């Protein structure tokens, strides 16, 4: 006796996987994101990160200012220095998660997703692993930090970008 028609296919995951693979191949074929769109997505990301950070900081500030008045028996819970550290830690964690986890889990930050961009592995078309995404974030921040670092440590105050371009910035007003 044959099986009754099943309401769910046992191999629907395989069909879905085939569709995912097709999508990855298609993404590899898509054009690289234009600079203007990437910049626009960065502006959006800065706005979103600022809104969340700013909102959280306001919340912490409210807590520190008004908490002792609302709960006078627990004043030690509202130490401004402790809350400043907590605020900073949460904001940095959020930033790291936003720039790295969202890229590996969703394929891009909110700004990128809204503008139709995806961050993918340029060989396979797959979303980045968390490790690769973290490295990508560190490299991006690191490059900026490197420029600033050379600016500070060099006695002639030339940054990495100055060294590469054989340039120097001079103060030309108010000197004798």
């Amino acid at each position: 006796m044959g099986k009754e028609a099943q309401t769910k296919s046992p191999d629907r995951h395989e069909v879905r996987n085939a569709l995912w693979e097709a999508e990855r191949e298609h993404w590899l074929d898509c054009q690289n994101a234009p600079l203007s769109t990437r910049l626009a997505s960065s502006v959006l990301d800065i706005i979103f990160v600022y809104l969340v950070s700013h909102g959280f900081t306001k919340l912490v500030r409210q807590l520190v200012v008004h908490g002792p008045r609302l709960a006078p028996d627990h004043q030690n819970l509202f130490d401004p220095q402790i809350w400043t550290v907590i605020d900073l830690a949460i904001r940095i964690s959020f930033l790291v998660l936003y720039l790295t986890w969202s890229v590996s889990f969703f394929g891009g930050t909110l700004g990128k997703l809204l503008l139709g961009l995806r961050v993918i592995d340029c060989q396979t078309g797959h979303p980045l692993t968390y490790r690769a995404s973290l490295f990508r974030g560190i490299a991006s921040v690191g490059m900026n930090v490197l420029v600033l670092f050379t600016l500070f440590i060099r006695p002639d105050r030339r940054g990495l970008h100055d060294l590469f371009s054989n340039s120097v910035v001079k103060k030309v007003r108010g000197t004798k």
Partner: protein
Amino acid sequence: MILLVPTSPEVPRFHRPTWGASIVVAIILLTSYFLLKPTVLADQQYIDNYHTLSEAGLFEENESEQVYLARRPLLSVTISPKSWDLERAIFSNFVHGGFTHLALNLIGVVAGVRICTTFIPFACTFSIFLIGGTLGLLFSTLVSPQLQNEFVPHLGASAGVFALMGTYYIYNFRFRTTYFFWFPSRQGRIALKTSWFFFLDVILLELLLSAGQLLPKSIDGVDHLAHVGGFLAGCILAVVLRSIQKWPSILQTRGEFLYWTTFLQGRLREAGYDRVQAPYVGWMELLRINFFNDLLKTRLVNHLAKHPTRFTDEELKLAFRYFGPTYVRLNTLDMSSLIRGLVKNQRALPEEWLGRMPYDTIIRVSHQLTQTIEDQEVLLEFILAYRRAHSSNKKLDRKVENLLRRIQTLIPDQKRALNG
């Protein structure tokens, strides 16, 4: 709201609000500012004198200090917790303490008036600005704790701005809003759902900060309570207005609403369309006016899915013209139901529509067609139809062929398992 400025509901170009109404209100605010500038400057001088006298210890009693403050020049045109009346409350909407205050409120007023005139006439918009703003300022004046200075003037157009935002929120709740985020190019605009993002962007922070304002020593000098009060007043006024108008929830713009009330219902009655044809005709007419209305499209999709054999190929082709890539991408479940219904009833999918669809959108819809074996047959037919529509595109044809080959190797195995 300053970082992500709502510029317009997501509507066709010819429905987009114009700048005329905003310019009128902006001119009124600017004129008021310059007319009242001497009063504002006199008030600043008065308060400087107050600080000097207070530091010199010349106020012997608290009462004399209160009497001095009660006579400050700004209170002749604005309100405070201890000194208010309705006339000055209305006038307070047009008074600003400085150019920065005015400039920030001008941005809000120009944006707020502009977006509201997509739905309601200018007279209604201005009335809501005035009534909502007045109610917001009164709310703040009456609710602010008495421990705060009773003669601090509550002024500015921001309560009115938030009233307009509240009105817009109600009218455009189920649709999307286009935002400008200060990036100087075409990419500097995005469309986001009003229901959650607008709330986040416009009011969430204000709710948080207004709670703090209820306690002594508020963190900043901004009247967050007036903002929240104005927003709520705007929402309530909008709900009342919509009830009076009997505005159907699926309609977005004023154009659609006017057409619906003035022409459409009568036309459908006279034409004698049956219960299947009438909704189709009605929604198609409305979509001709506003082809961005996703709620109408969803109604149309569900209606076609429910009656897949009742419409001609030409009618299906005309309907599918409204299901663009963005709509399909955001409504894959509804679209997959429609495609399932059509394919199972051996109706052809419009080739013109298939030709317009990007490959990744088709894949997204295909994900919804993987639940059952019957669905997977529909999936195969769907992808074959897509391939036929793109037969001249060699690159895409190759990709679709690879996909078909993968799926076809999987699906026959399942069929054999069932039959065996």
